[in-house]
């Protein structure tokens, strides 16, 4: 009797944990509008220029070369 009770209790706990996990995951689906990494310094809206903190601009500096369509 005691063994059966333990088995039932274990089953109930496992099922409850599975249901709670599913509910948690379902309620925390990755949002497409969540902040993206890394933070964007410039405007991220198209069209235009957007910079992250990893890239510095050279104000008044002449480029030695450029990226372009080829």
């Amino acid at each position, binding site marked *: 009797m005691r063994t059966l009770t333990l088995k039932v209790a274990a089953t109930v706990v496992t099922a409850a944990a599975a249901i709670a996990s599913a509910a948690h995951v379902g309620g925390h689906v990755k949002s497409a509008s969540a902040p993206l990494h*890394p933070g964007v310094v410039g405007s991220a809206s*198209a069209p235009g*220029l957007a910079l*992250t903190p990893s890239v510095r601009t050279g104000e008044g500096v002449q480029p*030695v*070369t450029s990226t*372009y*369509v*080829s």
Partner: protein
Amino acid sequence: MSGRLDQVRFEAMGAACHLLGVGLERGRLSWATAWVADMRDRFSRFEPDSEVSRLNAAAGRWVELSAYLEGLLRAALDAHEVSGGLVHAGVLPSMLAIGYTRPLRLGPTGAAPGAAGPPAPLPELLELRPGRARLRPGAGIDLGGIAKGWLADRLAERLADNCLVNLGGDLFARGAGPDGEGWPVGLGPATVLLRDQGAATSGTGRRAWWQAEQRLHHLIDPRTGRPSATDLAEVSVVAATAAGAEVHAKAALLLGSGQAAPYLAANALAWHLR
């Protein structure tokens, strides 16, 4: 200034190339120019004896690969994966269908856009093992969409500690640049200072032509097998490598203005959309 700035400009792979280095050893730029010419000969699908042409001609059979082609094919598979299938080296049948059968300076040939249809996912077309590869019968690859960025990364590794390799607009800036502040590079309307970073631009304005009152261009959308109908004209991207920048620029261009910015916010360091 930590040394003299040397540079060379030349044409290769149908595009203008520009190599720069600070404090280079004598003869390094000549060596690098020859290296690029060697890579062009290996990877051009227009050269019948190139490694890529031999791989395409042997579709259905295993082919021995050089370490360079193996690396580039692996990069093509990676690009396909990270771009969700948008950057697809297996669109050669679509390119041939629109008449891009030879270098465009010789002019396109007859076109039947859409005749090839969307390609299967690249891993289903290309099997890659150490030192060898096999294409599915009827498949063909064009590495023009990823080769320049990948080669810019490889050449910068070899050229010098402080150099910039620009192969047709796909570039990698290695080291602190001529003034120690990073390499100043034009990105759309701005100048950015790059240090151990790559940049690339993808667009539909070049390698485009008119055929039967229809504007065609070389940028194939693998979702349709036809030239992309994107509403963006040009996307420039900065990323950790030139290869990465090239992949993300192309993927963003194909996604169009509605999805390009969020895609790039998750994958790029800087970008310009036009």
